[in-house]
């Protein structure tokens, strides 16, 4: 794929992991974009930050483990995911309770705004 076809796509995942298919849908879009060699910003805001919690056992409610795929993101060229610091704070979460095998950068609103400024397209799910 030529450089001219390479775009920066931002995906904002704002849904909790097991209440709907949105978290999985967002992950699928991220992986699809990455497979097609696009630059991907994967941002977690609002209840989406719950996707990044360590020690989830969704099998106990017969749900699929969306988070299990996150460590594979690096293989697709998505080296890092971004998480909204305020969303963590509002939910009493600290970055040390998040997945250890994923590179997670905690971001301010300004940093998220900058990521969006750099992107051609933003998906918000």
């Amino acid at each position, binding site marked *: 794929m030529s450089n001219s076809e390479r775009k920066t796509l931002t995906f904002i995942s*704002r849904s909790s992991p097991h209440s709907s298919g949105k978290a999985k849908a967002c992950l699928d879009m991220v992986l699809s974009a990455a497979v097609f060699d696009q630059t991907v910003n994967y941002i977690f805001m609002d209840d989406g930050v719950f996707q990044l919690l360590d020690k989830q056992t969704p099998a106990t409610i017969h749900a699929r483990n969306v988070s299990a795929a996150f460590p594979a993101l690096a293989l697709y060229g998505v080296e890092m995911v971004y998480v909204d610091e305020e969303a963590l704070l509002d939910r009493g979460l600290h970055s040390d309770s998040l997945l250890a095998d994923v590179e997670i950068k905690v971001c301010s609103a300004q940093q*998220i*705004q900058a990521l*969006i400024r750099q*992107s*051609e397209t*933003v998906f*918000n799910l």
Partner: protein
Amino acid sequence: MNSANTTLHTVNKSGLQSGILASCLRIATRGDAILLIEDGVYAVAGCAVGSRLLEEKNSDITLFALREDLQARGLESSVPAQVKLIDYAEFVALTCSHSKTISWF
């Protein structure tokens, strides 16, 4: 046609029932526009939380609301002056005049 790297944010839920308006305002930045559609228009009318949120940012972000959605909900007369009312054709024009659109739903 595109103004320099600006984003149009569309919000379709009221500020009370859902946190999306607050999230949108957190991410919206100088020069952006926020367009309230569907139940999003409640934020400019009856919803005190929504109005306060909008006031905090209205100096550097342009606020629009879709006239049809306000009319349908009986809200057209309660819109503050800083909110610009637009129709569907102007909605289309707004999407064209911004470099991208983020849909908050």
